[in-house]
């Protein structure tokens, strides 16, 4: 029983990260109809800035939690800046153009690979634990750092879900996602809404980067694995669907956890890709995708 609880806790922890990541991807696709491979680099730059700044701030006399908050703000700021640049000089001109945005996206990825490697170096950076300690739940072990990450991820998912349903911006985002021409005809400023949607998605990726920095391997290539898993989650759940992204994230996390435990990590990866094939065969637009 204990290992079942441990596996459940592990799936929840991993799922929380994938949720933050896939929410951004699905939001961008829903509003702009583009596939954004740069999402992983926006995530990576936030994690790298946190990993670079945090030790310096701690050495400078700041308490670890204060230093973490400051470094996270800087990381999120840098990621939002990068997101804004990419939008204005790139994706703004390729909205609702899948092929064009795909090629542009790959170009940005190649360029940013080099830039991040040059700026931060290739070596892995260590980030000290901010919330030390472990919580034992019915024999299952969860670190406080992971617990904090889960809480923030679920809170952000809830806020986004609520905001999309109840705020003016949320309603505009949904209107644009359903039918951007009809939305513009009733006065929704599409360009501004698309930019804000892109920034919100970048913010979610940056937040995930800042939260994950103390518990993962921070290097310039950190975003790649999360990007692949995030895309799988949104494909399973349905591109453009927020509940679909959450559902898909949990699917991926559960298969990764249970498959990795009972079989072998390599087989778990194969199982995830097999699941994508099965989903695409029976639900070409994803489980919760719109027709």
């Amino acid at each position, binding site marked *: 029983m204990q*290992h079942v609880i*441990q*596996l459940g806790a*592990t799936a929840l*922890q*991993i799922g929380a*990260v994938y949720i933050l990541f896939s929410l951004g991807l699905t939001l961008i696709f829903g509003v702009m109809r583009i596939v954004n491979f740069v999402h992983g680099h926006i995530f990576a730059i936030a994690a790298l800035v946190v990993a670079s700044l945090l030790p310096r701030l701690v050495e400078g006399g700041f308490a670890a939690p204060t230093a973490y908050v400051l470094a996270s703000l800087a990381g999120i700021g840098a990621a939002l800046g990068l997101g804004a640049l990419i939008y204005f000089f790139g994706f703004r001109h390729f909205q609702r153009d899948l092929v064009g945005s795909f090629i542009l996206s790959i170009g940005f990825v190649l360029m940013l*690979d*080099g830039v991040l*490697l040059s700026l931060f*170096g*290739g*070596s*892995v*950076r*260590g980030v*000290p*634990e901010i919330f030390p300690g*472990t919580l034992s739940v019915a024999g299952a*072990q969860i*670190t406080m750092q992971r617990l904090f990450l889960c809480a923030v991820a679920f809170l952000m998912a809830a806020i986004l879900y609520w905001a999309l349903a109840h705020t003016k911006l949320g309603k505009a985002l949904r209107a644009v996602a359903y039918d951007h021409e009809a939305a513009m005809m009733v006065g929704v400023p599409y360009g501004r809404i698309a930019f804000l949607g892109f920034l919100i998605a970048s913010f979610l990726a940056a937040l995930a980067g800042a939260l994950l920095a103390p518990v*993962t*391997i*921070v*290097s*310039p*290539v*950190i975003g*790649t*694995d*999360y990007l692949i898993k995030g895309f799988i989650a949104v494909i399973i759940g349905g591109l453009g669907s927020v509940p679909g992204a959450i559902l898909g994230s949990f699917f991926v996390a559960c298969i*990764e*956890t*249970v*498959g*990795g*435990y*009972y079989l*072998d*990590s*390599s087989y*778990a*990866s194969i199982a995830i890709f097999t699941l994508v094939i099965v989903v695409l065969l029976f639900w070409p637009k994803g489980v919760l995708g719109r027709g």
Partner: protein
Amino acid sequence: MKIQLKSTAAIVALSSLVAPAAMAEETIKLGLSVPLSGAAAVWGKGAEFMCETAADEIREDGGISVGGETYNFACLPYDNKYNAAEGTKVAQALLNREGVRYIGGSLGTAPVKALQSLAERQGVLVFTVAWGASLKGTDHPMTFTQMNTPGEILPVLLRYVAERHPDAKSVAMLNPNDATGQETEALASKVWTKNNVDVLTSDFYERGTTEFQPIAARLASMNPAMIDLGATPPADAGAIFKELDVLGWDGVKIVEVGTGADGLKATGGAAADGVYMGAGVTFDGDTVTDHQKAVNTRAKERIGESLNAVQIGFYDSLYALKAAMEKADSIEPEAVADSLPRVTFRTFYGGEIGFYGTNIYGRDQQMRLPIIVTQVRDGQLEEVARLIP
């Protein structure tokens, strides 16, 4: 008179162009097939740094004297991205476009296999740090190994660990799911069994994985006395040991290809303590020379990490080539390959070494490098055993 003056001026002008060319030293291009991007970029950048360091030192010492001419080395690093597809492109670029006849060093079993097949057909001499045993042997007379590989390290490392922990009679193994991991795993399983250690499980994982909790949960569930992470890169290994620590597992930890404490500590923190490694190099002891310290300091400034055995191989290969070229009095790769097993040269580790390996591989193609067993103790990498083969 006017014509004579013009002719003289033309001759002077021409000779001023020709003279420096005639006096210039010849350059021998050394191709490097290394990862310069992605997770293993730090190894490739360190390899490039060490190749350049050795090339500069050799140039300052007067270069390579062959047949009355002076030659110098120039390093040409190409990014193989640690995979076979890019390794093939790099091989074609280096051999067909750049026309290199020597590979000063190459990294990654899969990309090196791609390089080796093309190089052998063109008579190009290849140095490699790749761990794959299939790259060695009498079928590959132009390939030489510039770093200890599982064939050298594992018998020494695993026997040392088994003897130090006589009560530990079971091990769980994990390796990356690629050519390096598979070849390492095959040998390590045999060596553990030979040392009367029971292999409970031997799993593989995909490089680039970032969430290691399920892997750690599976390994811990076997309750092994030891966990051997084989060819897992140090940063991944640190993350796995950290998750194992959270789950309460506390046993003997081994990373066979472990090259340094930096990556391990960055992700593992305190959980990295106690890890045994087979390819680590320390720069803190009394035996470390000023030259080693100075080069390591420069390397840390450039790549952000201490040097390791992978990168040092790219320094040693240049001195080996210099010695072989001077002994053969030729820069033809076949003549140099014939000469290499019979020369000794200065290694970065200190002292003069040569090549060996006839007993294992059928020919002397392995540098006779010290096998160093290190362990992370109180956050520092310490040498705990050294064997000169």
